[in-house]
């Protein structure tokens, strides 16, 4: 654990502003504590999909990490609503037995992780996201 965190810190990648959503307090607490230690900033914490949409509208995070099954509005429906006002990459954590896969919605990557996820899974997904941001800003600066 400690080694994983230290290795990541030394990698010195781009810092992301992240919104998190989960109806389980344990998971919100975990992400709130672990993400800053990975060098990122948690800018919004939601307990359901509806709240997540509102917080994204207000804070425009770089990345959203959300649970799939939540009251009010589930994770993938929230993704669809948020994508309507700006394309934002997603990490969706769900208990469904679909394989870990990566899709793109409105040009932004959507990574599906299957529970129980562990720190290295999150780290891998974050690294992919950072790579996407770097590639994107590279393309933009060339243009």
């Amino acid at each position, binding site marked *: 654990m400690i080694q994983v965190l230290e290795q990541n810190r030394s990698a010195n990648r781009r810092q992301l502003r992240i919104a998190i959503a989960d109806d389980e307090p*344990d998971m919100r607490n975990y992400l709130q504590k672990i993400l800053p230690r990975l060098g990122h900033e948690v800018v919004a914490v939601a307990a359901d999909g509806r709240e997540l949409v509102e917080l994204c509208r207000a804070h425009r995070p770089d990345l959203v990490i959300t649970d799939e099954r939540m009251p009010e509005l589930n994770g993938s429906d929230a993704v669809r609503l948020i994508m309507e006002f700006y394309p934002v990459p997603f990490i969706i954590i769900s208990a469904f*037995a679909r394989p870990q896969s990566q899709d793109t919605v409105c040009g932004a990557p959507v990574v599906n992780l299957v529970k*129980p*996820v562990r720190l290295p899974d999150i780290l891998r997904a974050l690294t992919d996201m950072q790579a996407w941001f770097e590639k994107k800003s590279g393309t933009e600066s060339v243009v």
Partner: protein
Amino acid sequence: MTAPQARTILIVEDDVDTRANLRDILEADGYSVEVAGSITEALARDSWERLEFIILDRKLPDGNVEDALREMRLRAPDASTLIVTGYTDLTGVITALREGADDYLLKPVNPELLKKALGRLWAIKEAQRKAKLAARLAAVGEMVAGLAHESRNALQRSQACLELLELEIADRPEAVDLVRRIQKAQDHLHRLFEELRSYVAPIQLDRTPCSVSELWREAWQLLQGHRAGRDITLRESGELQQKGCCCDRFRMVQVFRNILENALAACKDPVVVDVTCGNARLGDRDAIQISVRDNGDGLNSEQRKRIFEPFYTTKTHGTGLGMAIANRIVESHGGRLFLGDPAPRDGLAGAEIILLLPRDDQPRPDSVAAVRGV
């Protein structure tokens, strides 16, 4: 597949000659036969649950069969009943059938017709048993799939807290060690749930043409960790280069892995595992037969009977699902998995697992659909 145990038949017949005659016919056919001369005598016996068939003379000295049928069916609900009666007794036959008799035969009993009737009743019983088991498995399966799914949420919360805890106590090595032990136990629980789920979930095959020797060699490769530091020989014989089997590579490697892993666990060093490959028939189709035998002590009768049962294990850390999953995968390929002859072969006295796979050069229509993810 092990030889079926002798099926037990109760004959209730007052005529001594007929009784002896029936007994001879049935014993010659491998049945275990018990007899009674009257209803009273029949009802006085015990261990009804062992009976597969009851053959009843319609007219007995102490009453008509329909008087006793209800009671006998209560005592031996799984036994099939066959009524023996005369030509003129249509009313009696109808009454007996209404009371739950499964079939009837006319006197004098023709041995061939009797055997045919018993064979037919046995087939019905088998089909009913299978249907009952399938229905029970489906219900259990649905429940287990739900449970495994829900467990992921609980395991996720536990995982999150464990990781945070490990960070909190990073400066206390003993406490960190405890957390890692909990993590290990949790990983085991997770694996158990996932194996259960994969056992009950529907199997969708992604078939490609393979050579069977590639499959077991790949499985052998995957077992490197189990083989490290041991004295193990893999002996291969037969027609190893043959192609012509169209299967889901990943799943069939899993089948061989489970079989070979069992062989390694069952043997003391030096281990010899023999894989022999040849041609065979499976129903009306050409098939490839692969036999895996080891030099362990072999299986005892309990193990032979239960090896493909889910949750049956002789290992301390096994889930008991390995062979059950293997069997399911092989059957979904239209193949068969069964035990070979317990007698030693080529100097090896260990267990022999035989796998029959239909010969197939092209993916069949079902597999095309699976590849497309339909």
